[in-house]
């Protein structure tokens, strides 16, 4: 029973990180119908930048803030410079461009910071809480992870449901031409969407880096898990991304705990295949009339 509680708590913590990556993928998919395969590399860059800032200043908080700001900037620049020229091109172009961007960012990171993974500090202690004399697999840093992701999800919900710009972003994502006819500056909102997505990615990078270490390719598995979580949630739905992330985190935590961590990547792929076979639209499918 103790093991089950441990695996469940651990699943919630890692699931929260998957949720952040899934949110990043979903925000871009909703707006531009592009799967951003470069998301893992983008969050790797922002985490390296945060690492440099933390090393230079000794302040985790400052490094965290710089990671978020650099995420916003990188997302916006990628959309304006790389994605916009292929906005109306066939979908395969966007896939190739995203993979090209991934390769470019991995190479640049290797040239600047080297290929050897390095440790990354956590915001809080990673020593599990002591509950009734038993140490559980859930530490203050896990609480921080869950709270940050919950705050991001609530913030996005407030933005989309409670503000004028959120309404315009939803309209632009659902029917861009109709949105333009209401005076909505759709291209600016697409840039904002990419910036917000990269912000979510930057947060995920900061949260996961202490456990996977910081290296050019160390975030690839998190992108795969984030993608599976996004598909599980329905790919179009931010709440679905959060729930999909948490569910996947739990499943993979149980697999890792009971069957061994070597089976985790395989389990993630099995979940992906099962979702695509049984419920390809995910748990929270978009409305039938949806288009972008």
């Amino acid at each position, binding site marked *: 029973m103790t093991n089950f509680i441990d695996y469940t708590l651990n699943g919630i913590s890692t699931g929260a990180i998957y949720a952040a990556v899934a949110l990043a993928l979903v925000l871009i998919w909703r707006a531009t119908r592009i799967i951003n395969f470069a998301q893992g590399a983008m969050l790797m860059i922002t985490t390296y930048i945060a690492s440099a800032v933390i090393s230079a200043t000794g302040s985790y908080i400052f490094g965290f803030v710089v990671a978020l700001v650099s995420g916003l900037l990188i997302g916006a620049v990628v959309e304006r410079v790389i994605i916009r020229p292929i906005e109306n091109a066939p979908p395969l172009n966007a896939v190739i461009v995203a993979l090209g961007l991934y390769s470019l960012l991995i190479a640049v990171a290797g040239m600047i910071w080297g290929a050897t993974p390095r440790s990354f500090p956590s915001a809080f202690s990673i020593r599990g809480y002591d509950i009734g004399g038993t140490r559980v697999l859930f530490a203050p840093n896990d609480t921080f992870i869950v709270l940050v992701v919950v705050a991001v999800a609530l913030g996005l919900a407030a933005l989309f449901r409670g503000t004028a710009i959120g*309404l315009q972003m939803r309209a632009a994502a659902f029917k861009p031409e109709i949105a333009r006819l209401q005076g909505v500056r759709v291209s600016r909102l697409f840039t904002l969407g990419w910036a917000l997505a990269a912000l979510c990615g930057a947060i995920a990078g900061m949260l996961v880096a202490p456990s996977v270490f910081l290296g050019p390719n160390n975030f690839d598995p998190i992108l795969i898990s984030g993608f599976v979580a996004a598909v599980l949630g329905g790919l179009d739905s931010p709440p679905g991304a959060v729930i999909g992330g948490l569910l996947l985190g739990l499943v993979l935590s149980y697999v890792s705990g009971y069957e061994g961590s070597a089976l985790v990547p395989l389990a993630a792929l099995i979940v992906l295949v099962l979702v695509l076979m049984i419920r390809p639209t995910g748990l929270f499918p978009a409305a039938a009339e949806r288009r972008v």
Partner: protein
Amino acid sequence: MLKVEGLSTNYGAVRALDDVSLTAEPGSITAVLGANGAGKTTLLRTISGLARASAGLVLLDGNDITRTSVEQIVRSGIAHVPEGHGVITELTVEENLRLGSLHRGRAAAPMQEIYDLFPALVERRGQPASRLSGGERQMLSIGRAIIGRPRVLLLDEPSLGLAPRLVAQIMGLVRSLADTLGLAVLLVEQNARSAMSVADRVVVLDLGHVVADQPPQELAADERLRHAYLGF
């Protein structure tokens, strides 16, 4: 006043509009009629900036808006209700209306004004627009267009898919909007009889060319034109 002078639009090698000129006066309805492929929708899309003009001018109160962005054209006072109603079905009725008012800020009409005009929408305000009937969707799209207090209203096939009783209701509403709000309405229609019943002037397009521009009474009296281009 909206003035179109020598407007041409190409889709690749195909010339969809060729040297089209017309005027839409405040408080009047100009109906644009013609068969499928005549260029009616392209005319509206070119005026609102969705399609790029290859030649000619679009003037709003004397200002050239031909190569202005769609967003800027909307902000300058032209509202376009596209074919198929154009409501965003994933948003609620109220969100659709609010979307149409955002670019005008405090200058937009109060929401209640739209609900007074379309009482059927009041009960539906919190529901997704996907649950509306065809007639309600048309009311919503027109309401969303006029909440921004435009000077020109471009309506593309508002009768499409509606029952005859609703068509008459919508046409009556369009007439009333032109009269009470002083809107210059450019009404594209397949349903020639309905459009002519409310229009002050009728422009007939054929393969991108203007073949007639006259009051509806004169057009109704011209048997050759009616048979050749309007099918009755």
